[in-house]
């Protein structure tokens, strides 16, 4: 099968769905002529024209409001907030309008819309262009939250998002765009929300990881395999809905859990995942749950500090050793 980068897989999902469904349009800052700051919408302006690929003012509340109003009026907007950090200037339109409208209106509104945005450290973009904020969106009923880690998942999940019929926050880790390449079918396909993917089978310890951290966890698992430690890596792929069952089943098999996210630990997605397992699989655990996350700081600028900030393979391996305790095979 041919391979695509993460960014090109997203681009193909958008292109194919726009060809299929004239109600789908794109809007955001620099998504048109420029092709998106990370190239995700490259070529779409040329193919679909300025009526369907809208360069907006730098005006994030208008961008999300536009999605809300136009989806209520029958369209399927795919809007982009360039960096998730910018959600601070427009959160009302997402939190109080998009997410709550259906419920507040007694079910009578339908808001099919996708909010794509980038997050994550690794590019030296510093504190206001690098944070991970998935737990903010997980905390809001009415939103769905998608966190892809591979080109295959990115294309299938984005296709699903555009057909879901609800406000979907689609988070893209910017480190993945050009660095991660993988096999992607040429035709359109959907990956259902709420279905975790076991990225690597194992029997000694379960590592639940998201986005960029899936790749770090897989690298750590590869290194540990040489020492005879068998690590199972589970990627939830969506955080709302959340596939608790796959994670619980994995823990019942391995009896140990490490959760890895780039988000900070405090009130983060890792806390939610750990709480689920503590609640539903406590009797199966042979060790306390460990979390590997960023420290509780804004994302620092200096390359050495930024690398310290991002959870490393070494820290993941250390946590795995901790939960294995004396059970580490010789």
């Amino acid at each position: 099968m041919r391979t695509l980068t993460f960014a090109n897989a997203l681009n193909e999902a958008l292109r194919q769905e726009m060809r299929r469904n004239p109600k789908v349009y794109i809007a955001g800052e620099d998504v048109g002529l420029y092709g998106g700051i990370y190239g995700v919408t490259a070529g779409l302006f040329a193919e679909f024209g300025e009526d369907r690929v809208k360069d907006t003012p730098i005006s994030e509340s208008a961008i999300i409001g536009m999605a809300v109003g136009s989806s209520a009026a029958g369209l399927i907007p795919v809007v982009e907030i360039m960096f998730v950090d910018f959600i601070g200037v427009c959160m009302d339109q997402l939190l109080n309008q998009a997410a709550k409208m259906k419920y507040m209106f007694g079910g009578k509104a339908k808001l099919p819309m996708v909010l794509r945005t980038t997050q994550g450290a690794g590019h030296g973009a510093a504190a206001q262009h690098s944070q991970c904020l998935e737990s903010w969106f997980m905390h809001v009923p009415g939103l769905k939250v998608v966190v892809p880690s591979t080109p295959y998942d990115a294309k299938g999940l984005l296709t699903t998002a555009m057909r879901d019929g609800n406000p979907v926050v689609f988070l893209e880790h910017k480190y993945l765009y050009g660095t991660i390449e993988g096999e992607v079918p040429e035709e359109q396909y959907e990956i259902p929300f709420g279905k975790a993917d076991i990225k690597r089978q194992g029997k000694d310890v379960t590592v639940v990881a998201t986005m960029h951290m899936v790749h770090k966890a897989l690298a750590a698992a590869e290194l540990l395999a040489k020492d005879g430690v068998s690590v199972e890596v589970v990627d939830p792929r969506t955080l709302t809905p959340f596939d608790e069952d796959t994670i619980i089943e994995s823990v019942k098999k391995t009896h140990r859990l490490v959760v890895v996210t780039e988000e900070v630990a405090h009130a983060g997605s890792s806390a939610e995942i750990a709480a689920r397992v503590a609640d539903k699989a406590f009797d199966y655990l042979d060790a306390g749950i460990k979390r590997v996350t960023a420290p509780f700081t804004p994302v620092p600028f200096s390359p050495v500090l930024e690398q310290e900030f991002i959870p490393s393979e070494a820290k993941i391996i250390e946590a795995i050793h901790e939960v294995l305790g004396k059970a580490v095979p010789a």
Partner: protein
Amino acid sequence: MTEKIENEKLLAMYKSMVTIRLFETRVSELFAAGKLPGFIHLYIGEEAVATGVCAHLKGQDYITSTHRGHGHLIAKGGDLNMMMAELYGKRTGYCKGKGGSMHIADVDLGILGANGIVGGGPPIAAGAAFGIKYQGGDGVVACFFGDAASNQGTFHEGLNLASVWKLPVIFVCENNLYGISVSQARHQNISDVADRANAYDIPGVVVDGNDVMAVYEAAGEAIKRARAGKGPSLIECKTYRWRGHFEGDPTPYRPKSEVDAWMKKDPIPRFEVALKEMGVVTDEGIAAIKKEISEKVEAAVKFSEESAWPALQEILDDVYTGGSVAV
């Protein structure tokens, strides 16, 4: 008057204003009697604005409303029974009791909701207008908001986007002189919100918001322009809320003399005089209309009182399209 309005339409406008007044007056009594939970913001005194604007709107046209939204809903054709039942929190209400006063909506009627967030509407209105334009329709969106909302960033973002893309929206500022307790003179350095249209190179007009014919005429011009693809306008309607910001507000921030002066400018008797002069209605006709509407409001109260509460398991319904999600 640039165009003659048919008697039937004039009567419908009059009935809209009276319906708003009688509905709101009854809601005030019910709230005072402890029948209605939550926050209630009444539209009494501002009836001419919603009526004058919505008289131009058709089924495919949209409105975005505010926390003070009952008047907009009635003027756009909202059902009194479902409105009142929603204020009671009953399952027969517009939102099955899940929205309340500040979130009443009827998407099928083009009512994209009252809104509890001051300034929440303009970006949504621009979005709905984009949806109309994208699909090639000649619909229009009327976006209602107050003087205080014109200080929000969302107001400016909505006007900017609508103007640069020439979207079919009319932005209707109901300047009732107060943002909760803070007078306009204390919350912005301009006396006419319409001046802000200049910043977006769109028409901005000031009208007497207690004169339904003046509102109707200004809105008509703006809507004609919007439907013709010439983009948005800003209409500022100078008006006044007779009640406090919310029911129960003791209003220590404004003198009684100011309230009395504005109550003398009551838009309803003023329209009655005009209608009688035009021979559209008689005193007897007015009395009959008020009686008929009063009975409809009472029927809405009875309907609401007799309606069931939502079943407790309904709390989980309607969060997502397609059913609840596993979390």
